[in-house]
């Protein structure tokens, strides 16, 4: 009997098998097995993720994958969130939309992060993708409510519209009215970022009322508290809800309506919003608290004891975002009440204040690490830290996947010993073998980087500021962190050596950002010349780099691997160090 080998299967069978492989990594691996698998796989791939929109061109993507239904694109580097990337840098989505309009008429999902999206792009999306179901614009900018109106009017199958953290130009316009009366398929709507003139409340009410599948609704700040009860009563099936402003004069009718409305939302698991919250209205959500798995109070200026009291009512919490008003005492209560906690983010209420305004220290984080065995992800802003605390935290939580600590005063030492925090962070990377993301702060020497290079083998993203003493630090990271994909560095004394010695490593990473460091223009040019598959972009708003000496440090440096070559949409303050740049100047 003739033995069947893998490649003699009919294509349809392999396609069917591949349809069970959802992970992009696995798909990529399968496509490398042999030519026929490559071919079959590329025809049946439906979903792609492009972590850096300049790493590949839309033409290349379309050429390889002819039938994509879901695309995710990311544009600007992460430090753009903190104003380190000037306006006009790039990350335009229009070229992608234009090309995909013709190639992927059946596109269902578009997810964009840190990209510039214009009204023209949105209009093109609405016109070209009649089957669009999901549109997520995460930290995007460049569009107005006119673009949203086009989406509302054109995308009859839209299920999810999520504008989280985006900057939308508020032209007055009742864009919500553009959803036709026959449109009933909304499942998820996040308009929390919109400004004042953008939302016609009556249109919102009607929309919510006619969409029976609406499960997620995040309102913007301008929706007044007394309107919420009505809204909730039209959507008692909500699972996730974000209020608007949560302040109003205490009125018993408003209060009781709200309490009743929340009580009727039997499936509510996640709450957010709470802008300007006043304690008086907090108890209306008590009926929901026991079921809550996610609570975002990071816009609520609520303080203790009200804040702690609220937290203590939520034993099922898995995800908690809060301001540092919670203080150590509140975190201790969190630690004893919320045994399922997996993610904690504590934001600073007064990030630029010179003096602490709340009593939030390392003790709060130690308490949570001790009391919450499932804790995996931490983002913590505070003003003091000790190695002892970090070591304890590391020993308590070996399962950390994300650990981001921001000590507000850069280069602050261990407050007990006045030493650097190398040992503390070293303990984190040593104990937390699955750590994928790490942000450092405080006084740090080259030593911590040696620990990181030695232990952080699964680390994918590292953020560094005001740390290290020499190139050796950067060298440790680049040579030791095998899984490193994204490295972002600001204000560190790292120069050319480590970068040039590890040039090959850069091709294994998505990107490297270095600003206010000591990398010379000459080194950038050398990298640009020798590494054709890297784009070396130098950013300087003061003037062209050729007006300065080769040994002068560049202001901002962004290096990323790309098969698309240097980009052509750079603003005047970005120069790409490709082969041409060096030769035309020498």
């Amino acid at each position, binding site marked *: 009997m003739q033995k069947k080998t893998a490649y003699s299967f009919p294509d349809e069978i392999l396609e069917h098998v591949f349809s069970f492989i959802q992970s992009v990594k696995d798909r990529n691996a399968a496509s490398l097995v042999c030519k026929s698998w490559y071919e079959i796989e590329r025809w049946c791939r439906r979903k792609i993720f492009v972590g850096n929109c300049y790493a590949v061109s839309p033409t290349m993507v379309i050429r390889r994958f002819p039938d994509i239904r879901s695309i995710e694109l990311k544009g600007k580097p992460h430090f753009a969130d903190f104003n380190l990337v000037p306006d006009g840098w790039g990350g335009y989505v229009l070229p992608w939309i234009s090309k995909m309009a013709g190639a992927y008429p059946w596109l269902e999902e578009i997810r964009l992060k840190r990209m510039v999206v214009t009204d023209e792009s949105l209009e093109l999306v609405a016109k070209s993708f009649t089957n669009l179901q999901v549109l997520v614009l995460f930290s995007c900018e460049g569009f107005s409510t006119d673009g949203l109106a086009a989406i509302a009017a054109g995308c009859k199958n839209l299920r999810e519209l999520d504008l989280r953290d985006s900057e939308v130009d508020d032209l007055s316009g009742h864009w919500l009215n553009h959803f036709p009366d026959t449109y009933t398929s909304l499942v998820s709507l996040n308009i929390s970022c919109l400004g004042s003139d953008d939302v016609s409340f009556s249109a919102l009410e009607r929309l919510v009322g006619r969409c029976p599948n609406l499960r997620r609704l995040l309102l913007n700040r301008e929706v007044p508290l007394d309107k919420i009860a009505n809204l909730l009563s039209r959507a008692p099936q909500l699972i996730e809800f974000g209020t608007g402003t949560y302040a109003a004069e205490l009125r018993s009718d408003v209060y009781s309506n709200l309490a009743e409305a929340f009580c009727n939302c039997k499936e509510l698991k996640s709450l957010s919003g709470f802008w300007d919250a006043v304690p008086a209205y907090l108890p209306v959500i008590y009926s929901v608290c026991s079921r809550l798995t996610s609570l975002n109070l990071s816009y609520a200026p609520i303080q203790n004891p009200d804040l702690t009291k609220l937290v203590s009512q939520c034993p099922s919490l898995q995800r908690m975002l809060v301001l540092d008003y919670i203080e150590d005492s509140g975190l201790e209560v969190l630690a004893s009440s919320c045994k399922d906690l997996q993610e904690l983010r504590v934001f600073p209420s007064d990030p630029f204040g010179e003096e602490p305004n709340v009593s939030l220290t390392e003790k709060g984080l130690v308490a949570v690490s001790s009391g919450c065995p499932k804790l995996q992800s931490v983002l913590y802003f505070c003003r003091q830290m000790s190695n002892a605390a970090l070591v304890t935290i590391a020993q308590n939580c070996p399962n950390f996947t994300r650990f981001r600590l921001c000590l507000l005063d850069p280069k602050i030492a261990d407050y007990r010993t006045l030493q650097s925090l190398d040992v503390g962070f070293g303990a984190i990377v040593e*104990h937390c073998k699955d750590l994928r993301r790490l942000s450092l702060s405080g006084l740090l020497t080259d030593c911590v980087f*040696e620990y990181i290079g030695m232990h952080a083998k699964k680390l994918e993203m590292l953020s560094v500021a005001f740390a290290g003493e020499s190139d050796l630090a950067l060298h440790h990271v680049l040579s030791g962190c*095998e899984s490193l994909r994204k490295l972002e560095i600001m204000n560190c004394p790292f120069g050319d050596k480590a970068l040039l010695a590890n040039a090959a490593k850069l091709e294994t990473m998505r990107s490297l950002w270095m600003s206010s460091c000591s990398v010379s223009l000459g080194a950038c040019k050398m990298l640009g010349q020798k590494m054709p598959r890297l784009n070396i972009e130098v950013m300087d708003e003061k003037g062209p780099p050729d007006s300065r000496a080769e040994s002068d440090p560049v202001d901002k440096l962004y290096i990323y691997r790309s098969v698309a070559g240097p980009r052509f949409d750079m603003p005047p303050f970005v120069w790409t160090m490709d082969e041409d740049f060096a030769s035309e100047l020498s």
Partner: protein
Amino acid sequence: MELQLGLALPPPPLIPIETFDLNSYGNYETREALGTNALSWPLLKLGPADNDINNIHHHNSSSSSSSSGGGAGCKKRSFDEAPFFDEKRNVPKTLHLLLWTNQPNDEDDDPSNVLHENSSSAIFKNDGEGLVGWPPVKTWRKKVHHQIPNGGAENNRLPAVENGIGGRASKSTYVKVKMEGVPIARKIDLSVHHSFEGLTNTLMRMFGISDGNRKSFKLTYQDREGDWLLAEDVPWRTFIRSLKCLKLIRSRG
């Protein structure tokens, strides 16, 4: 915490390498002298001679449990001793563009890089908001905190919050500027300008408009009521107080 080094030697260079003096870095001649084989062997080597990288260093294991002493258990090492090669690692061995020399670089020998410390705080301060990009708080959150109602009257535990709102410029002084015909808006810091002249100069520079072309542009602004007005029609103080965003339009006629 023990440090085990698995070391592998790099492939021997095809051409004998001369030590590369970083001080002559910008010297193109030196680079060319290294020849077209530059891609196949390290241009600068980490560690003085490959043969010497057989020293295995062990760390003290005290670093993970001790809470005292910054860098306890971490000897500060020079580049010679850096664990560069790990035979288990899967890092491509070609394309090291840098060879360490045995000659210490200035910055390595100076642990207290005082110059850098001073510069980081002096150069990068952004008026009214501390260091640029620090702390890493999203713009969204900055805005929220500045608008937190003043709770000073009821709660005297928070004087700093009160000061934070009253004392420093609590509203962001950046406004959006658009130019007609240009899809992307820029942002400009109003607090550093004190007259229309200065503001216009900055805008012309920002959008690359030459002096000759200045006359063909007019500055307009949108006030809090949403109306668009000509900037030159109002006094500077009125302008500053009521403007929401700016737009440069081409003047007609």
